[in-house]
């Protein structure tokens, strides 16, 4: 029996002691909780999209040399943000100790570091712009309503596809010729059995079909490509066999034409860094208020709750970057 009858009289524990500081911080923590969900969803989207097209070895996803991603720049930026977080912590401690002057200095340092981060980011964005690594611009959208096939009919996809052929040959070429009877095996093999085993291996089956198509229409990889690129799995597979360096030659022209999934990469890159950047700008404004107050000499210890919350937010933005950085630059 669950008893609800008479409850005991209120004790000290049940009487809450409301204080605006606690409430403010609670609100802040709750807000950060929602922010955690926000970035979780964003990062999950990125990972899902990325790994739905990329293989476990990362192939299929534009590599850093294609996208001009420099891990060192990212690392430097991480350092900037970490330092600024330290500064914000120092500011909170200083204000807690009643030293508003050093708090102000620390705050301005933090702001400068944050702005430095944004400056580096702007430099990076500029590079992306220069190389047309922008969503909707990377060789995957053509004027005049062309279709995907055109990309492989006329674009630089062709040499790439040609370069797949040795890879295909290496994977199933022998089996392929044996099954078709183009080659005689030393030991008599059962073509039906072999075909069956090829079919059971998805990668092999894809390679088999691609070879079949290339064979059927000898020098017409466009048809094969058009069909094979309908499934992301096959793109991944084709990418495994493509010579990445060859495609990279295009970079000198600053026109990254058909860069498979470059569009998706750019979408993810700009969404992640852009939304993080927006948070950072908000953070700068939030920190800028007490910093300005400090300059005019009106930063009082009673701003401590505000500053604590602002610092929480800033640390959070920092933390998000620490997660974004390896996922975007190193993975």
């Amino acid at each position: 029996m669950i008893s609800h009858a008479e409850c005991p009289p209120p004790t000290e524990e049940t009487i809450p002691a409301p204080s605006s500081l606690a409430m403010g911080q609670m609100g802040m923590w709750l807000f950060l909780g929602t922010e955690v969900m926000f970035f979780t969803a964003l990062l999950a989207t990125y990972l899902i999209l990325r790994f739905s097209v990329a293989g476990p070895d990362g192939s299929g996803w534009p590599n850093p040399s294609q996208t001009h991603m420099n891990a060192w720049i990212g690392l430097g930026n991480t350092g900037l943000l970490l330092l600024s977080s330290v500064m914000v912590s120092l500011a909170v401690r200083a204000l807690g100790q009643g030293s508003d002057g050093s708090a102000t200095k620390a705050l301005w340092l933090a702001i400068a570091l944050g702005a430095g981060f944004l400056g580096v980011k702007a430099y990076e964005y500029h590079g992306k712009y220069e190389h047309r690594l922008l969503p909707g611009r990377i060789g995957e959208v053509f004027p005049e309503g062309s279709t995907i096939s055109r990309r492989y009919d006329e674009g630089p996809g062709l040499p790439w596809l040609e370069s797949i052929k040795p890879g295909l040959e290496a994977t199933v070429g022998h089996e392929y010729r044996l099954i078709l009877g183009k080659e005689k095996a030393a030991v008599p093999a059962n073509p039906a059995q072999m075909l069956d085993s090829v079919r059971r291996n998805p990668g092999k089956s894809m390679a088999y079909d691609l070879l079949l198509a290339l064979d059927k229409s000898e020098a017409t990889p466009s048809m094969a490509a058009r069909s094979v690129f309908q499934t992301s799995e096959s793109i991944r597979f084709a990418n495994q066999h493509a010579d990445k360096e060859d495609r990279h030659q295009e970079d000198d022209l600053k026109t990254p034409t058909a860069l498979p999934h470059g569009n998706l990469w750019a979408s993810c890159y700009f969404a992640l860094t852009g939304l993080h950047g927006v948070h950072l700008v908000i953070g700068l404004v939030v920190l800028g208020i007490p910093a300005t107050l400090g300059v005019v000499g009106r930063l009082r210890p009673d701003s401590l709750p505000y500053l604590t919350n602002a610092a929480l937010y800033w640390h959070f933005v920092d933390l998000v970057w620490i997660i974004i950085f390896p996922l975007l630059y190193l993975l």
Partner: protein
Amino acid sequence: MITEGTSTKVSGLPGTVEIAGAPPYLFEWSESAHWLPLAITGLALIAWIVSLRFKRAWAALFGFTLALMALWTLQSARSGLWLPESASLIADEVDGLFHLVMALTSIFYLLTQGVLIWTLLQPAPPGGRAARVHGNHLLELVWFTVPTGLLVYIALVQLPTWAKMKGQVPGAYLAAGYQPASDPADLLLTVTGRQWEWRMRYHSPDQPMPVNPLFWAATPAAEDIHAVNELHAWQGAKVRMMLRTTDVIHSFFLPQFRFKQDMLPGKTIPALLHTDRSNIEADGTERVWEIACAELCGGNHYRMRGKVVIHRDKKEFMDWLNRQKASQSERKESAAALPTPKPEARENQ
């Protein structure tokens, strides 16, 4: 839905079934649609007026609504406004599950409504005061465990059907896991949804079955046979359909097969249809089985109507396919089109 004298034609069942004897309707929908809501409103008004005097009349309102629902359900089931005719083995299994759930939920519904109405009819507790009861552990345990047991039963009993439905094409949804020819089909076609029609492309039987239907689905061949909005197969055929779309999400819905599958842009989704019944009668007449789109695809979403024809045997189907092929490869105008055919309707005028 057409009542003629004492016999009733019921559509939705195989063909048009004549049910002899008294009409199974207590009222005729098509004619009652306009006055019945008013009549029901009137009854509600009466209930309200009576309740001004006798507050227990509210039980009648609840009871009346309950009766109305039971009546509707039974009427619909009897008059053919129910599950469409089933045309595949899986459809029969689905119907079985449906009726199982229907029975269980009906029992629960009647039970809860019964209790509710019963409590409304109860006289006030002695002394005008209800007992101050806060709960009952045993009772709560019972009504926690019983539904849990039933629900777990429902969860388990459906698993084989689901596996059969979707597992016919193992790993169909993961291109990586797709096993090209592990389950040979008799007939291969792609169904491409576009705003707003279904374009069917049948694999030519003259050509060997492709190693990988996914591959074939993406590359049209000169030999393929095209049709619009018409899905043809024969009774007992295993039909592999490669579902694709060129623009937005459509959903390929075959009510008689209890089949529904969204078409996702950018993906080719294989599905297997194991036909079990034909919609062509012995005398050659055809019962209409339709294709509908079940996912909003724009303003003309409702226009994506197609039809399914399950021929009685493969020969009949091949006749159709060959006709289709012949008309597709006409090198001169067919005799039928020259001169202008006389519309049949005109004969009567």
